[in-house]
């Protein structure tokens, strides 16, 4: 059974189409990065998966319809939005009590264990904690829940470098065990590149790329062409070309690596490079930005 399966998922707000009929299948045990410019429909897609918004089309998460079965679904799904959603008036001890009281799969001892590695005090109110500490607390709560799907919507927004690094390290070392599924959206693509098993680009409510990281590494190739070979490289129809220190870097989809190696230094592009190549031009149009 796929963890998430959507067919023709559509959502519009008035005249604005947030999701334009997307098909999506996420297998169990994958770590999917959902990447897209602002307003691409990422949050709408996540909200639909979490049962926070209605939609047209069919959507099954762990075999359930999220819109009609949100409360049962949340026994097996965890969710961290950005850092601001923990109730500010609550004490840390109350948060532990409450989650323990309502969640059938919460292991309080485990959460206490994670919290013991931080400097968060049980008696503190959440409003007294720094942004980074609130995220640590939320992560400690979520990791103590034996869930099948974890959804992260910009989980490290506004955190400093140390907290961001620690967030993903903890998640990988102490939580991910190959049977859980994680869906994450972020603008800090370079941070998650190494942990993803799959990547998906979303733009204007449509999926523009959906591939595994293994495919990504064989499909896409970048060459920093020596000046005398630029014209020959261009003839192979690159997806995108950019200039770095006066040298042309050309990005290809399914090109012959050996042939490209003759033009200059060949490497696998980063997700961010491919994102700019595929979406940069279009996003600039919609955002009305100068090229």
């Amino acid at each position, binding site marked *: 059974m796929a963890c998430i399966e959507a067919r023709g998922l559509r959502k519009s707000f008035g005249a604005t189409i947030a999701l334009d009929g997307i098909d999506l299948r996420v297998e169990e045990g994958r770590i999917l990065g959902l990447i897209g410019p602002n307003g691409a429909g990422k949050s709408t897609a996540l909200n639909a998966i979490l049962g*926070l918004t209605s939609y047209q089309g069919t959507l099954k998460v762990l075999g359930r319809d999220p819109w009609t079965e*949100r409360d049962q679904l949340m026994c097996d799904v965890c969710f961290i*939005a950005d850092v601001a959603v*923990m109730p500010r008036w609550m004490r840390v001890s109350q948060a532990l009590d409450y989650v323990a*009281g*309502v*969640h059938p*799969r919460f292991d309080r001892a485990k959460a206490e264990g994670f919290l013991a590695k931080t400097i968060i005090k049980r008696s503190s109110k959440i409003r007294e904690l720094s942004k980074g500490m609130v995220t640590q607390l939320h992560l400690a709560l979520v990791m103590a829940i*034996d869930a099948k799907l974890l959804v992260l919507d910009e989980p490290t927004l506004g955190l400093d470098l140390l907290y961001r690094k620690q967030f993903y390290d903890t998640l990988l070392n102490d939580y991910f065990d190959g049977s859980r599924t994680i869906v994450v959206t972020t603008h800090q693509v370079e941070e998650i590149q190494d942990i993803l098993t799959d990547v998906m680009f979303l733009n204007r409510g449509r999926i523009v790329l959906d591939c595994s990281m293994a495919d990504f590494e064989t499909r896409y190739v970048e060459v920093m062409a020596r000046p005398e070979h630029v014209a020959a490289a261009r003839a192979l129809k690159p997806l995108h070309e950019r200039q770095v220190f006066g040298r042309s870097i050309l990005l290809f989809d399914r090109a012959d690596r050996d042939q490209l190696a003759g033009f200059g230094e060949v490497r696998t592009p980063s997700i961010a490079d491919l994102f700019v190549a595929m979406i940069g031009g279009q996003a600039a149009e919609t955002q009305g930005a100068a090229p």
Partner: protein
Amino acid sequence: MTTQVDTLPEPVRTPPRATRPFYWSIRRELWENRSLYIAPLAAAAVTLFGFAIGDIWLLRRMSALDQERRSFAVGHYDLAALVIMLTMLLAGVFYCLGALHGERRDRSILFWKSLPVSDLTTVLAKASVPLVILPLLGFIIIVATQLIMLMMSTALLLLNGISATALWVEGPLSAMSLVQLYCLAVLALWYAPFGGWLLLVSGSARRAVFLWAFLPPLAVCVIEKTAFGTTNVAAFLIHRLAGGYDEAFTTRAEGASQLATLDPVRYLSSPDLWIGLAITAAFLATAVWLRRRREPI
């Protein structure tokens, strides 16, 4: 040579524990809204403070505690109950207005909705705060306050060498407590539609919840009066505000807070009560529907 296929062992899942979402949802409300019990406790403290000063004043001029004075003291017991009830009513109004609005404003609704608690459980927990928790809490605080007052008066009499037996034997406390409990139950049920309405507005308005709660009913009254010259809506609202007492007691005469005037059978068979409860149910159902759809503000 045999080849072994490595299969990852199926991870052992924690067996689900029993949970009590409704109970913890109510606990959560009381954690967040401490004014629900601080306000009536403060009202009780203020009343007790006034009563203590009155007692000391009485002590200085008291040759004997005559009948008149004693009934004077009993009046204070009723006043204490009234002050605490009014405070709870106010606390309840403000609680309802914020209950479904605050969680959307501070976006914590996303946290609550990430847990396996249904919108129905949440709304019912929030509704039971003004309908059940507050009246019970109010009763406990009122009885405790009156007991303290009684003990203060007893101490006062004993200090002056007067027997306090009369105060305890003729004392109104047990009968009065029963009447007060009845009163609180009557009020909670009678005002339930208002609680439901406030919760509904709290769950639907984006801002200015207070205005949305009070201006539309007023507007309907004004439109009816100016358009048709009638005041049916206003009369209905006033009946819903003030009519409960007539349904629940046999008489409105002086000294009505006597046990004999309670009329629970008539109150429970009053169609107005049940119409009100049906309206409450409709308001709450709409609030559940709204909570499912509304996004953070």
